[in-house]
């Protein structure tokens, strides 16, 4: 994403908005997600109390991250896991590549992990000659299509069954069908042999419990279980902000994450790994990689509270911008409100040119729905405004000057009156084509307002002069 991030977004969004199939898919999928979420929340009467607990736990997760990571690492190492720390994406990729090389690996199977997308792990391993296979159904689908995921919990949300069926028919030789069970079976048939033949299994880590050194993975499909128990080596990657202080913290988190993420009461499988498997019972080695990759920089910024993110995706589902233009428009693996805040710090490498001064903080109509739904009570709207201010601090002087002048105008009665009068006169007097030329961003899609004959003040003076003061 070289050049202006907003301009690139607008180009992609314009294409997405013209794609009726995509828009239908987005609407149906997000409407369903929101309906399920509402139904689940109705079953949790003390939801707000649980949300407060989750917010406090997640705040500790990023505030005390150094101490929590150290504790978790010590426990994991004592249990026999190999613990690594990667400062950035390149270091993380190198660590995983070395582990794979040491294992003489040829085939790698992966569970869904947004972190591995963030650090662009798969292309790196493939360039080294490894075959890397996504085993989460949604990730498997987008991998076949050569796309990045368009949503953080539902990677193929932008597609419908017919599109998936056609894809499987083309690439897997499967019979065309719109039955979701049959589509899933087609993927399973393809993947089953791969699980058995894989040398290395890679997973993320939804959370790591510091108190016990427990790696927590959450899934509905069983693919993480298979990926991380059948191959000889299991590598788990997790962000340094993912630590939960205590095992008991899983209770509030697991109460709120599934309803907000997938509209479930609970995910199908919650795996708690306290160390490597006993000999003969699973992989020969467990590696855990704690990755920073911009999280410390984010923690030092005004948007640090986004580090509490649970990666549920609720803010994407409720965001009107996401619901209309979809995840791919952002050009980043973290889209939507949380993506606006994470991407400039975590994806700077991956999406060249993206940084706090060139971010998508403007891709938001400030409706504040995201802040309402976040289960960790992250003040997303305020953080987006903060990110916008941070971006604008690096804006060209001309733009800062323009807003300085606006600020003066807004507070100067004479200038304000004059500007208003000029605007009304222009709307009255100038020909339509010229007005449209002068206000392209408004007039491309909307008519300009018809000017009233007089300002409010003038009207009040005529009708109720006694009310003026």
């Amino acid at each position, binding site marked *: 994403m070289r050049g202006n991030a907003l301009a690139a977004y607008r180009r992609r969004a314009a294409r997405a908005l013209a794609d009726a199939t995509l828009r239908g898919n987005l609407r149906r999928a997000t409407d369903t997600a929101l309906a399920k979420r509402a139904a689940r929340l109705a079953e949790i009467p003390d939801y707000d109390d649980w949300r407060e607990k989750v917010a406090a736990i997640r705040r500790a997760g990023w505030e005390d991250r150094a101490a929590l990571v150290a504790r978790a690492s010590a426990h994991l190492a004592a249990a026999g896991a190999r613990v690594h720390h990667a400062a950035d994406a390149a270091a993380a990729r190198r660590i995983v590549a070395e582990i794979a090389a040491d294992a003489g690996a040829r085939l790698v199977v992966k569970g869904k992990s947004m972190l591995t997308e963030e650090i662009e792990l798969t292309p790196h391993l493939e360039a080294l000659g490894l075959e890397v296979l996504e085993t989460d159904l949604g990730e498997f689908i987008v991998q076949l299509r050569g796309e990045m995921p368009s949503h953080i919990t539902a990677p193929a949300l932008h597609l419908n069954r017919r599109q998936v069926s056609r894809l499987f028919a083309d690439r897997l030789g499967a019979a065309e069908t719109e039955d979701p069970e049959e589509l899933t079976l087609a993927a399973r048939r393809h993947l089953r042999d791969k699980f058995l033949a894989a040398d290395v299994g890679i997973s993320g880590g939804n959370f790591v419990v510091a108190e016990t050194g427990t790696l927590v993975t959450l899934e509905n499909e069983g693919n993480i279980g298979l990926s991380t128990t059948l191959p000889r080596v299991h590598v788990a990657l997790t962000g340094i902000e993912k630590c939960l202080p205590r095992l008991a913290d899983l209770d509030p988190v697991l109460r709120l994450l599934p309803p907000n993420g997938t509209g479930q009461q609970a995910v199908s499988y919650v795996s708690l790994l306290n160390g490597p498997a006993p000999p003969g019972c699973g992989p020969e080695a467990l590696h855990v990689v704690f990755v920073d990759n911009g999280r410390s920089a984010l923690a030092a910024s005004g948007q640090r509270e986004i580090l509490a993110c649970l990666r549920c995706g609720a803010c994407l589902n409720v965001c009107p911008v996401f619901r209309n233009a979809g995840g791919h428009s952002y050009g980043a693996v973290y889209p939507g409100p949380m993506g606006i805040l994470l991407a400039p710090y975590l994806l700077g490498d991956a999406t060249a040119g993206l940084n706090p001064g060139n971010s998508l903080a403007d891709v938001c109509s*400030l*409706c*504040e729905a995201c802040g309402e739904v976040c289960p960790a009570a992250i003040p997303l709207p305020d953080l987006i405004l903060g990110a916008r201010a941070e*971006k604008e601090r690096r804006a060209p002087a001309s733009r800062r000057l323009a807003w300085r002048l606006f600020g003066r105008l*807004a507070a*100067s009665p004479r200038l304000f009156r004059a500007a208003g009068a000029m605007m009304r006169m222009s709307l009255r007097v100038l020909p339509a084509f010229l007005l449209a030329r002068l206000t392209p*961003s408004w007039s491309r899609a*909307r008519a300009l307002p018809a000017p009233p004959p007089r300002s*409010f003040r003038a009207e009040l003076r005529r009708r109720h002069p006694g009310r003026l003061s």
Partner: protein
Amino acid sequence: MRVRLFVPCYVEHLKPAAGLAAARVLDSLGLDWTCPDGQGCCGQPAFNAGHPDEALPAARRFRRLFDAAEAVVAPSASCVAMVRRYHHLGGLAASEREALADLGARTFELCEFVVDRLGVTDLGARWPGRVAFQDCCHALRELGLFDAPRRLLAAVDGLEVVDQPDLDCCGFGGVYAVKLPEVSAAQADLRLDALAAAGTDTLVATDVSCLLHLEGRARRRGLPFRGLHVAEILAPDPAAARPAPGAQTSEATP
């Protein structure tokens, strides 16, 4: 009670009818109200565009104009939300901060003033016809405004309200409307679809800014549309001849 009318900038210059209707509502309550001279813009565009410091002059001006009021009332949830944020702006002295926090607590959107502050839900209004009511985001989420406008509209004689809650943002978003016009227009279209489904061309809302955006989009698409501020239903202009419902013109602009 010393009540001061705070006029949003776009009401001042583009939709004075909404301000006059708000004035009539205050009249009907028998309040001693005035409209201070020298008002400007609340500064929200700068704040929302990432230049919060440039809202400071507006904040200070607002305080000078309105500090003497016991209550400040505005026909705009969005502007009131901004006023309530003034005390968080950087660069204020502690005494300014305190004064602005206090003033923000005395500044109300019109419906919340009438219902929550004065305890009045029936203004004795009459407006026969069907309208749709849609929430504006800042009203809903910054001011927590949901019941007040609905209760006031429910008491209007002859009025049939098609309540349309749970809709996505209309896409105005202030500066957003011109920074991301394509997505903004797509969002507007969804609200207009909902309006059509309500079987009326008349949309009532608490914020004229959203209505101007939707009206502009509707006119460009040649759709019938009449956007009314809540006050225009609660205190219709006695002098105006009201067009029959559905008779609103919809000139497509070239």
